[in-house]
């Protein structure tokens, strides 16, 4: 995992820094001052040397550099640390909303296989999987804040109560969660249909369990193992979607900052943000990997032997 993080750091450094355009290109700043600033940040040295300073700063001092454009003179790490909580809150909430809903809908679809409920749901699932979250974001904004004003248009970061804050998060969370809900429901439906026709489910029913009891106790958990696989790309999907959605609802998170920093050419900030995004993804992947063992004893105990 550290290796992955290192590769991400190096890759994002090289890719971003090899972009043309000087960081300090600004007609209002005189060329001498530009040169002085570049010297201070080692920007006048060859790229390899800059790479060395970049790695040394992060590893030894946790120093990701200084912002030059978006918030000039401010330590990048400090900028990001204020930006992480809203982003994490949005993404985690979207995930927490989408998983149970996806499970419930997937189960219903599997149990009502080929009945009208299932057909309608399958149609909606395809629709929601194929439409990206920012389209939902603008559609929700248009219909639920402009046409029928139920929810606030933008995120209210100054809200005093948690309730008000969450209220202003409902729309972005919904926009982010619709796709994942559909993804989970779709995969779970397929998995459950297979599990429901298994011998042990038949045995569960010959024990005298009702169909619903058998499904919940025996089928659902067995279907979760393959589902855990789909959760990893789903999480990265949510994070990717939140880049844009944060912007649309002016949530002061990492996503908006990343877009700003790329547009402004604030390379230190961009690279640092990319690293933090990767770190968040890696952590979620780790959690998913650990959860395999919790769901399936064959992985847990089999690995020990």
């Amino acid at each position: 995992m550290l290796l992955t993080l290192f590769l991400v750091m190096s890759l994002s450094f090289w890719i971003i820094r090899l972009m043309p355009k000087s960081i300090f290109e600004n007609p209002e700043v005189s060329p001498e001052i530009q040169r002085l600033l570049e010297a201070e940040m080692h920007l006048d040295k060859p790229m390899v040397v800059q790479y060395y300073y970049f790695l040394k700063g992060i590893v030894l001092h946790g120093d990701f550099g200084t912002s030059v454009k978006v918030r000039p003179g401010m330590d990048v790490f400090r900028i990001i640390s204020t930006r992480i909580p809203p982003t994490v809150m949005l993404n985690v909430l979207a995930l927490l909303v989408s998983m149970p809903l996806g499970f419930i809908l997937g189960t219903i679809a599997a149990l009502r296989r080929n009945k009208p409920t299932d057909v309608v749901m399958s149609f909606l699932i395809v629709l929601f999987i194929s439409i990206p979250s920012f389209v939902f974001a603008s559609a929700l904004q248009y219909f639920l804040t402009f046409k029928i004003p139920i929810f606030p248009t933008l995120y209210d970061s100054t809200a005093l109560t948690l309730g008000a804050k969450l209220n202003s998060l409902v729309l972005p969370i919904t926009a982010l969660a619709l796709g994942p809900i559909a993804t989970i429901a779709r995969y779970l439906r397929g998995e459950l249909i297979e599990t429901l026709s298994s011998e042990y489910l038949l045995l569960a029913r010959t024990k005298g369990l009702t169909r619903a009891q058998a499904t919940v106790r025996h089928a659902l958990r067995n279907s979760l193992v393959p589902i855990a696989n789909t959760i990893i790309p789903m999480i990265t999907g949510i994070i990717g979607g939140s880049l844009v959605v944060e912007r649309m609802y002016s949530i002061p998170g990492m996503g908006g900052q990343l877009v700003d920093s790329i547009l402004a050419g604030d390379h230190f900030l961009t690279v640092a943000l990319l690293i933090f995004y990767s770190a968040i993804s890696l952590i979620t992947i780790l959690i998913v990997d650990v959860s395999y063992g919790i769901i399936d004893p064959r992985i847990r105990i089999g690995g020990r032997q």
Partner: protein
Amino acid sequence: MPTDSNDTILKVTDLTISFKAYGGMVQAVRGVSFDLKRGETVAIVGESGSGKSVTIKAIMGILPGNAVIEGGAIDYHGTDLTKLNEEGFHEIRGKRIGLIFQDPLSALNPIMKIGKQITEVLHLTKKLSTADAKTQAIELMRSVGIPEPERRFNQYPFQFSGGMRQRIVIAIALAGDPEILICDEPTTALDVTVQAKILDLINQIKKERNLSVIFIMHDLGVVANMAQRVNVMYAGKILESGTAEDVFFRPAHPYTWALLSSIPDMQTKEKLLAIPGTPPNMIHPPKGDAFAVRNKYALKLDFEREPPPIRISDTHWAATWLLHPKAPKVDMPEILRHRINRMTGGVV
């Protein structure tokens, strides 16, 4: 056909089941009738696809969604199981009728502890507390021959061998104290040495608990040691029915002859006789005797009219025109006659 008596606990009459398929209705079971008496083992033997498993699935109410019970009745203590709804079956399954599966490897939930899979039934059928259920489950595991049941209780199915898993499946079937135990080829998926032990176990628990057993098997050799009465099934119909002695020592139907001739034994030196051909397509079952095309003793009549069950003795009947008084006299295959003579000492 055997006469009705008071200790008959399950009576299947003229059961007819079809499956909806793309090509039409597959007639899996075409008028099957048999009785199960208390404390008795009834075997149903036949090739794959003869309708054995479908019959017992109908008794358990676990037919797949595309199956249709087209006629007949399954009388269990005055209730017709063919008309029972899903809720009604919750009172039957597990509590009254237990089922042992063919493949213990896939019959247990792979990610649930063995103990929980047994206690689940106890909670459900006897409303036991967790502690009581555990004690009883361990007792059950011991009674089906699981060593160290206390330790095994907390293990998962993948930590058990095939034979041990089948013992667990048996324990699960027994947990609800059923009065009927249905064994669907309980040893087919197991090694031969393990087979014998499982069969012994089934016989032993049957005696201990005075169970009635329906035994589904394609292996006649196994059936001989297990069942009091044997029904030979082919293409969805019972062709011959009688006590184990009737069917093994006085077989009357050419299909039974063919099945018996294909069993290897220690003495037979001759080449075993395989049954030529394959079972018929059950979307369009043949007009006369379904076995006629594969039957070298078939009469012209066999291709035109279906033979009715013809009584041989009080306990024995077979559906073949060969038993008709006007039919030509035909003897069973040599290999079979020799074998029966050897086993009975020529008395029968």
